[in-house]
């Protein structure tokens, strides 16, 4: 698996972007965007957003209106009636609450554990470190499918099927997160700072809390956002571990689609309900999430 690192290894030659905005200007010495660029980008933006807009449109009409020969293009009044029907057919309210719990717990755990481990891998020397790190990175590429079966046996033994901890615990750490934090801390945390703390007689844990965490905060924020988003959208494991009796949003949505009489407008209203929270978060934090992904892409 170590071969996987190969393509990236070469990127070390590429210097990390410190100030993307400035560099962006320089890179774009290719020139200012012309009308063609704007047209293409606007079209792409429309394509990106249209399915989401359509969810709103389709979710706010009755089925009959959707089936009309000229389909509607503006939202309509049936939205709340469809919301009501969707909530009746699938426990979406409960699902949203569950998803907040699950994603929140996963985010806290991932950020904490990955910062701890990332710090150790970046700055501490201990026997077997290289091997352990290779293990972390190697398994980053192993598909989820490969551990799902024993995992299911495990939670079945523990009688955790349909319990939220079955979804939370296995996801509580992420190899990607460890790697991400390590990459950040290697350059962001000067050894002198750590040694100064040590000279002042601070315990190792104290040093972590009062020196490492403040320095790591920006990366922790990025990791938190990405983890939350991924945890919220996770589909494969929750649909195995949970049922529609105690679902996360994704499981509830899957259940909504499999009703006996599929009513498109109700399905769309439910989809909208399940997507809204993350879209709101994305609208507020979108810029930071974009920055985080681009930063991770280069630095990682």
């Amino acid at each position, binding site marked *: 698996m170590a071969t996987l690192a*190969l*393509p*990236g*290894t*070469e*990127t070390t030659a*590429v210097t990390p972007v410190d100030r993307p905005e400035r560099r*962006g*200007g320089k890179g774009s*010495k*290719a020139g200012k*965007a012309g009308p063609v660029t704007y047209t293409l980008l606007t079209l*792409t933006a429309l394509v*990106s*957003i249209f399915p*989401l807009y*359509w969810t709103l449109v389709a979710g706010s009409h009755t089925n009959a209106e959707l089936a009309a020969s000229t389909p509607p293009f503006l939202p309509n009044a049936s939205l709340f009636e469809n919301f009501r029907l969707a909530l009746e057919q699938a426990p979406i309210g409960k699902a949203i609450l569950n998803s907040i719990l699950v994603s929140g717990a996963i985010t806290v755990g991932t950020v904490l554990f990955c910062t701890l*481990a990332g710090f150790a891998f970046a700055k*501490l020397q*201990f026997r077997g*470190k290289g091997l352990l*790190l290779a293990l972390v990175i190697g*398994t980053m*590429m*192993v*598909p*989820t*499918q*490969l*551990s799902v079966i024993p*995992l*299911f*046996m495990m939670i079945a033994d523990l009688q955790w099927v349909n319990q939220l901890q079955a979804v939370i615990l296995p996801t509580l*750490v992420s190899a*990607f997160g*460890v790697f*991400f934090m390590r*990459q950040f801390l*290697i350059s962001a945390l000067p050894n002198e700072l750590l*040694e100064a703390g040590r000279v002042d007689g601070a315990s*190792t844990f104290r040093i972590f809390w009062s020196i490492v965490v403040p320095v790591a905060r920006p990366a922790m924020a990025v990791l938190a956002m990405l983890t939350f*988003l991924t*945890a919220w959208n996770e589909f*494969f*494991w929750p*649909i195995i571990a949970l049922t529609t009796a105690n679902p996360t*949003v*994704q499981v509830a949505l899957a259940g909504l*689609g*499999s009703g006996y009489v*599929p009513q498109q407008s109700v*399905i769309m209203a439910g989809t909208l309900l399940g997507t809204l929270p993350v*879209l709101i978060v*994305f609208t507020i934090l979108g*810029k930071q999430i974009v920055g985080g992904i*681009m930063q*991770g*892409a*280069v630095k*990682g």
Partner: protein
Amino acid sequence: MTIASQTPREALIAAPPAATAPAPDRTPPKRRTTLTRNRWGYAYVAPFFLVFGAFSLYPFIYTAWVSLHRTSLSNIDGGTWVGLENYRNLLQSEFFWNAARNTLTIGILATVPQLCMALGLAHLLNYKLRGRTFFRTVMLMPYATSIAAATLVFAQLFGRDYGLINTFLEAVGLERIDWEAGTLSSQVAIAVIVTWRWTGYNALIYLAAMQSIPGELYEAAEIDGASRWKQFLHVTIPSLRPTILFTIVVSTIGAVQLFGEPLLFAGNGTTSGGSSGQYQTLGLLMYQQGWSNFHIGQAATTAWAMFMIILVIVGLNAVIGRLRSRADR
């Protein structure tokens, strides 16, 4: 491979795992300070490895063991040792080959246009641009949408009778298509969902890499009289090669695991992947074997087959990458 959060897709965020390989040898020169030589290192990595070992590493290895047994879901702990029988069955099963074929075609249909479009898009986003934050954010919107939500919406859009896409086709004088029923049409539709969700994301990855290409390279190319297109071809693309290679590997791994989209595409969550299995993927087949047919051992075999496929793809890419970079020198 930590279970839920880590679709390897996500690992792409870490994208080119830059300093990965050289890491062990590049640790700072050994200094005998109490801090950097520290057995506390183990305490810091312990929480991660405890969870990781219990819920990722151990299950990963145990899957291989399960695949050598005839084990049913109702009798999880007991199983009969059958050796390689599950693997033999798999290779003789037309369902496996059908799913493998579908996974391959959907994977190509989804990955190739996706990455090409992402590359072009990144190029556009790299211009001096008004409202660039807006464009970047909007293009990442699909990534924030879940598989379930995206698939349900697209299933509606691709609907046979009242789907918007067919309405549009009819309006411009073409024939309606029963998207879900056909082999190619259903696979194209599923590929569209995947492409929609991931293009913007990959564009951002490329954009980040583009911005770290030194401007001098373009200046030199311009002095040599290279046209804009030639600059793109001879400066941008070669500089991006490691990133491109990496997105290819990661997208391919994602494609091998494709599951949610074919599960929900018909809207009813059946595991057969269409009336004649026309869009059943390996991921879906594995789920069907384990959780519909309760044959856990066979499902584990399929999971390992998927892993082997991924290893081959990753190996091929690594070899190609190495050959190409050697050729450049």
